[in-house]
């Protein structure tokens, strides 16, 4: 007598509506590697197994929000769309968990020219943290960061993994315009501005690398689930790399 291979237990996932055309899958209530992996696994499964009526999905820290077309889910009005989409997603949960793979992306290297005109707040962050500017740079460029999600602006990564010693509050008065590529700190978070926008993060450097281009097939350089490192560069290298950017 043969037995079917047992599926691993499905994670405890809460499903609830976000209005009449979206459903949220909540994989946990706090940021954790396990929650992140479960969201990544489910995103990958959905991308490979799209169902009729799937519009798109948005991974975040603890949630995956799935947008759907209620008309298509209703199959010409025969089903209640929410019940139908919930049923489809519930059936996918154990399958997605079973096919989960450890992320195999190599870390993306983001060159950053720290301080000077590119990092107007480096001295301020150093003063706040009691570190020297060189130590701030060393600690900021040491860890491998995890891209938890992309949001706020096109290609803007929410990163996890910053050294807690670097934590510095936002500016009381946001700058009217922060240039694209600016690398900043806001509380315990660090990130890279992908578009010129107003912003209140403490700016410690800038990258010449573009994070976003609508002409790219995949318009965001970074994707949720990837890892990245910041690599300190000199100003001459910044200008050389900038010339090579499209």
């Amino acid at each position: 007598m043969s037995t079917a291979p047992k599926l691993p237990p499905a994670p405890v996932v809460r499903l609830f509506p976000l209005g009449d055309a979206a459903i949220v899958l909540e994989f946990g209530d706090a940021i954790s590697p396990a929650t992140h992996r479960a969201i990544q696994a489910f995103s990958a499964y959905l991308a490979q197994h799209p169902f009729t009526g799937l519009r798109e999905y948005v991974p975040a820290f603890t949630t995956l929000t799935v947008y759907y077309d209620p008309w298509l889910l209703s199959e010409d009005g025969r089903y209640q769309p929410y019940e139908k989409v919930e049923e489809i997603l519930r059936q996918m949960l154990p399958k997605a968990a079973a096919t989960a793979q450890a992320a195999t992306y190599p870390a993306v290297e983001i060159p950053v020219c720290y301080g000077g005109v590119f990092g107007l707040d480096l001295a301020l962050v150093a003063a706040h943290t009691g570190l020297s500017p060189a130590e701030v740079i060393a600690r900021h460029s040491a860890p491998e960061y995890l891209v938890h999600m992309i949001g706020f602006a096109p290609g803007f990564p929410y990163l996890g993994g910053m050294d807690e010693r670097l934590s510095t509050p936002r500016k009381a008065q946001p700058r009217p315009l922060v240039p694209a590529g600016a690398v900043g700190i806001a509380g315990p978070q660090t990130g890279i501005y992908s578009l010129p926008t107003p912003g209140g993060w403490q700016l410690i450097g800038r990258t010449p690398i573009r994070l976003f281009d609508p002409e790219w097939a995949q318009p965001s350089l970074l994707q949720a689930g990837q890892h990245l490192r910041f690599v300190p560069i000199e100003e001459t290298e910044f200008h050389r790399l900038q010339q090579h950017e499209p």
Partner: protein
Amino acid sequence: MSLSIRRPGLLTTVQDLGRHGYQKDGILVSGAMDATALRVANLLVGNEEHAAGLEISLMGPGVRFETDHLIALTGANLSPTLNGQPVGLHRPVWVSAGTELAFGAPVAGSRAYLAVAGGFALAPVLGSQATYLRAGFGGLHGRALQARDLIPGAAPTALGRKLMQLLASNESGTAWQSARWMPEPALRPSPPASPVIRAIRGPEYGQFSTQSQLDFWQQPFSVTTEADRMGYRLQGPDLIRQTTAEMLSTAVTFGTVQVPASGQPIALMADHQTTGGYPRLAQVITVDFSTLAQLRPGQSIQFKEVSLAEAQALYLAQERRLRALKRAIEFKML
């Protein structure tokens, strides 16, 4: 086939039904604020519903049709005229080359839509012609229209050509000719004097005090002057969240009513950010996006709670009406 812009108006942009599939990359959906109005305008000129048209805000542009066109205007009544004569909304209109479209006083609503048969020959960006103003792409050069812009038209569908021939063949010798039929009233709503916005509870509804929950459904809110394509800041009783727990950023969408620490809610619109960190008190139902899109600063609104099942039943009923309109127009042309 092209349209030349004589005067830009307050904010005139090329919009379709939005850029879907890239919110995970942080890219906004954009698209028409009143999507139903754009869909109806497209159907009236024989287009696919998702074709791009012009979204016209309050003070409309001056547009000259450089060749014969079949057009339709829907949404807000901004007193449109053709060569100085009033033209009705919600019907196909044939215009001969050289005809000038202009707008006057905004009578009702705030956003009108102009569809032209065939739509526009503009390169889609990430699958859509919608203008994304902040990032500067989509539409015409990623920006609002300006005087002297020329928008190239695309070839009408067979249905669009038939409709146009029918109206153009009227031997009255006028520069333009309007059809006498219109869609059913439910597909050409007049902006209500006392707008009621139906919503279902948002994911963080339970975190608000009982009093704030009641206030939200029972007290009026007014639209402030901070109201644009991204969202409307509303003013009303302070809405108090009973927990200080930090919210982790998560998805927000069109119609999400989020409440920052100030206690004054924000209703998110077509250019909403893809994610946000404010508690989501409520979610406006899709069929009421049109009412929301047509509001003006200073207007007072009343929220009304409905169930998810009711919201989706209304959604399906609206889709049936749009499908019936499409069939009716095709049937007329057989």
